[in-house]
């Protein structure tokens, strides 16, 4: 089987298992400020790390290219509370535009 199928199925199973756990375990066993806090911080840490990886990683180490201004613009637009989908489309447009003009390709 295509190895990507294993990744898709294993990851999907893990995520579903976590969702169903909340419905079957007794609340008092798992509820608490520590777990809530840690789960929140892990989510933030992971997503922030993924922002950096997706913006800067290249074939060999870090690369600064058209993604950097695109993500910077996304940050400004999010600050202005521009809707999510618009932010993503404009970020893609900036990167595509810069590359079309041959800048920061």
């Amino acid at each position, binding site marked *: 089987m295509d190895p990507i199928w294993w990744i898709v199925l294993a*990851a999907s199973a893990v995520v579903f298992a*976590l969702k169903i756990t909340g*419905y079957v375990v007794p609340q008092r066993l798992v509820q608490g400020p520590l777990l*809530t806090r*840690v789960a929140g911080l*892990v*989510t933030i840490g992971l997503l922030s790390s993924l922002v950096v990886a997706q913006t800067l*990683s290249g074939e060999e180490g870090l690369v600064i290219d058209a993604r950097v201004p695109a993500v910077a613009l*996304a940050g400004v637009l999010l600050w202005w509370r521009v809707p999510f989908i618009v932010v*993503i489309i404009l970020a893609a447009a900036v990167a595509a535009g810069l590359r079309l003009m041959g800048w920061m390709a």
Partner: protein
Amino acid sequence: MNQPDGEIRRARSQGIQVALAVSLYGTSFGALAVVAGFSVWQTMVLSLVMFSGASQFAVIGIVASGGVSAGLAAVLSAGLLGIRNGLYALRMSALLEPRGLMRFVAAQLTVDESTAVASAQPSREAGRAGFWTTAAFLFVGWNLSTLAGALLGDVMGDVRSFGLDAAAAAAFLGLVWPWLKRGEPLVVAIGAAVVSVVLLPVLPAGIPVLIVAVLAIGFGIYRHRVAPTKPESQGES
């Protein structure tokens, strides 16, 4: 005309608005997944079965940069991001009190958006209406737009010339943004970014993300010891 009817109607319309807005963004997931090397079917299984935006983006992002050899890191990252859903499920279990098979349906649909809309309602009845309305519209909308995106991504060819790699980075930024309202999350976000910049050039794809997760757990435990107040609910949008 009594008050509960109005509350329920408001919860439903709020749910539909949230679901439609977020659904659109499934298009970018679909396109990015196909471009990262996932087939249209594999992409659809992620949206239908995993059905959790942040975890889905993590899987395709890590496989896109690290290939199938980063598979374990992709699965672990999706799982770590899914812990949040488990905690939402605890709260929604108390609100919805689903029985039998409905527990599985409720579990599958317990995500950021359905939990946030349910939590924002003034009564239990409105909370339930908000959960189920958001969940139903989001599940259908997210999957239809994923399919549209996947078919589009299939014919697109070179991702970079369409800026799709930048779109993925902006997507992660948009996902983390609502959480960054207070000091502690900001510290973690900035720390995670710095650690990632340092580790990315020296470690295989997917590994820096996991190291950041471990550090975030350590930081959370440390903060719990020195400042054990319960933080108010956060980051659901």
